[in-house]
């Protein structure tokens, strides 16, 4: 996972580069929670651009980080979600509470 900090915008971007399963999700969870607590962002974005595989561990990871982000007063968004990953998020009801956005640059400009 690559972590990008946008200091001025208080934006934290997690770019997932792994195959997102139960095995890797525990490591990503620890790193993501550490970064949120350290950086205190206003917004957290998960970028799925490089995710070639995801199973239900990804759903648990996103819901868990939504809770962490909210506890620290930040919002959470998903980006570059493929149709297959989107279907899994839809099935779990995640998209009712977490939005999918096109790009975080646009959001900053607004």
């Amino acid at each position: 996972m690559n972590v990008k900090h946008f200091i001025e915008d208080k934006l934290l971007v997690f770019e997932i580069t792994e195959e997102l399963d139960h095995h890797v999700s525990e490591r990503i969870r620890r790193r993501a929670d550490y970064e949120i607590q350290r950086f205190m962002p206003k917004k957290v974005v998960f970028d799925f651009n490089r995710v070639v595989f995801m199973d239900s561990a990804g759903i648990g990871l996103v819901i868990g980080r939504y809770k962490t982000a909210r506890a620290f007063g930040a919002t959470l968004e998903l980006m570059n979600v493929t149709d297959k990953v989107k279907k899994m998020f839809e099935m779990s009801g995640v998209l009712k509470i977490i939005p999918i956005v096109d790009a975080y640059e646009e959001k900053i400009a607004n």
Partner: protein
Amino acid sequence: MSSQEVKNQMKIEFLSKSVNEAFARIAVASFASQLDPTIEEIADIKTAVSEAVTNAIIHAYSDTEGVVKISAKLLENGIEIEVSDNGAGIENIEEARQPLFTTKGNLERSGMGFTIMENFMDELKVESIVGLGTKITMYKKIQKIQHLENRTYALSSNNI
């Protein structure tokens, strides 16, 4: 589950270590590729296998270590995959199959494993005996028409 003729079959077994989740889904996907599936069909199979194997590791063996077995059969029109363990077993299968039901919320499990297997495969059977283990049998149709077209395309591009 299916009465089709068996064209090929394989078996693998491995310890219930989470690092083997990737190994398991890649091994099954590689075997399934003999049926010329689409990228979409392969992705569905990988996801379903990953869910079944993760369940065995997290739920069946929990804090212990055991053996997870996978056997797969290539049939005329699809693939049958069996994932089994000798672990804890499921007390209430109907409840376990409900979307969002989980007993491992502390591990951030979403409770979507069975729902995803059901949605991405064409058939799903769950058999379990508490204290003895669980067997998941899944069947995925592999569409023939598509890969005939792909094959024609592959041949013609080879000629160029």
